[in-house]
């Protein structure tokens, strides 16, 4: 584990140095990343130029959900976004290079081409979250304050598990890397809207099967003082950390199984 963290730190530091050699390019791609993610919030603003509420939620409340989802996803994407390149490495045989190095493959893969530009998404999400916190009416308690950082970190953990599980799936599926977009980008898009918008079965699915709703829906509805989705009790709002740990453990097992089953293309 420590070995993996050290590897990750060294490789990502190397990529950051390499990125910083071309500062103009770095500035442009980060700005691009920022603008790109800003477009879907602009779409939400446009919707609210025509309506006052969506699924019973007003703009500041949706901004709150949006900010939480974007920051949690952005952190996971910053740390592990490179994992989606695994399929390509399996296909062209360059994964073998990573296997012969005396360092954990997961850490090498995650830090490969570490993209600091992905901070653009985190920044955009943070700005929306700050706007939400400034406008939304929350009855703050110490417990709710504590829940804020816990929620963001656990959310990042849950999305990290999705990235790892997605990469593990690519050992089997190779070309089908796009499937994971449905859960990563699709997941964060889903969580940007209130749970009241979606069909109950869908909310159940992302609570009990793929527990994405622990990223923000369950804890955030508690903080906002809204009814918790599916009529669940209040305490589920605090389950995000154990859920995140369990997801990461399962994803780790999937990764191991995937790596064991790997057969090189031999080229």
């Amino acid at each position: 584990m420590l070995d993996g963290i050290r590897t990750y730190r060294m490789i990502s530091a190397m990529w950051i140095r390499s990125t910083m050699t071309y500062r103009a390019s770095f500035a442009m791609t980060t700005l691009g990343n920022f603008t790109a993610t800003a477009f879907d919030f602009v779409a939400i603003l446009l919707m609210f130029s025509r309506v006052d509420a969506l699924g019973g939620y007003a703009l500041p409340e949706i901004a709150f959900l949006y900010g939480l989802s974007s920051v949690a996803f952005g952190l996971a994407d910053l740390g592990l976004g490179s994992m989606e390149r695994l399929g390509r490495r399996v296909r062209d045989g360059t994964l073998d290079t990573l296997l012969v190095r005396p360092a954990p493959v997961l850490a090498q893969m995650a830090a490969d081409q570490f993209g600091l530009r992905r901070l653009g998404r985190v920044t955009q999400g943070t700005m929306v979250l700050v706007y939400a916190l400034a406008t939304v009416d929350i009855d703050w308690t110490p417990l709710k304050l504590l829940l804020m950082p816990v929620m963001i970190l656990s959310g990042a953990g849950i999305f990290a598990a999705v990235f790892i599980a997605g990469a593990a799936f690519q050992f089997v599926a190779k070309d089908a890397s796009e499937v994971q977009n449905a859960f990563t980008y699709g997941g964060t898009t889903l969580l940007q809207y209130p749970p009241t918008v979606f069909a109950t079965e869908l909310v159940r699915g992302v609570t009990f099967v793929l527990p994405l709703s622990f990223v923000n829906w369950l804890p955030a509805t508690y903080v906002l003082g809204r009814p918790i989705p599916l009529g669940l009790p209040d305490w589920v709002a605090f389950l995000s950390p154990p859920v995140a740990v369990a997801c990461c453990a399962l994803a780790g097992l999937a990764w191991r199984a995937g790596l064991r089953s790997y057969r090189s293309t031999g080229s």
Partner: protein
Amino acid sequence: MDSGRLYLAVGVGGFRRYATYRAAMVAGIFTNTVFGLILVYTYTALWDERPQLGGYDLAQAVTYVWVGQSLFKTLANGGGGVEGELMERIRTGDIAVDLYRPADLQLWWLAADLGRSSFELLARGVPPFVLGALLFDLALPTDALTWLAFLVAVMLAMLVSFGIRYLVALSAFWLLDGTGVAQMVMFVGWFCSGMILPLNVFPGLLGEIVRALPWSALLQAPADVLLGEGDPLGTYAFQAMWAVLLLAVGRLVQGMATQRVVVQGG
């Protein structure tokens, strides 16, 4: 007539090439369907608040979602057609080989891209649409003529789409690394083609601007024809105007690029 056969062969090649990756195709259909579902629910909430928003009723809005997800790959509104490869060839210098060929650069790539988009229309367009129609009430026309009119609009949209992406690719002659431009055009393309929100919902002046831009010829135009909202002939004229304009500018830029091209060696 020989050159016609040549471009047909290039087009068929493009079609078959994209037909090779079956797993990727299934993965893509799955992803489009998931995004379609998310959009349907948000649009339902939106139209619940404001029925007749943008002149659509709820069934039309839901239909719009599935038209968008189905045409997403075909029209490559966010990029992802042959232009990525063309850019790579310009960057590596392989473009010199293309310029040697006794064929026109623009027509060659247009043929390849039309082959690609025809395949995507059949393979990635039909399944999400059928799934959407099974799961939700769609506002689909009952007469064959409207479907035919829709197909014509899709074909014109393919031309406009290529026109935009060809210009993006040619920028690599000057920038060498076109990733930044491609990224910007991708998100502008999604937003301005109405992938996130139909363009007729955009308010005021912003709405008027986006509806006049070439991207509105991609998704909004065929969708309106299918939903019976737009006059097909007027829509065709708008699309054809942009197609001709973009392809002409592409030809002009291509001329400028090949006049001054210094091929990357190595």
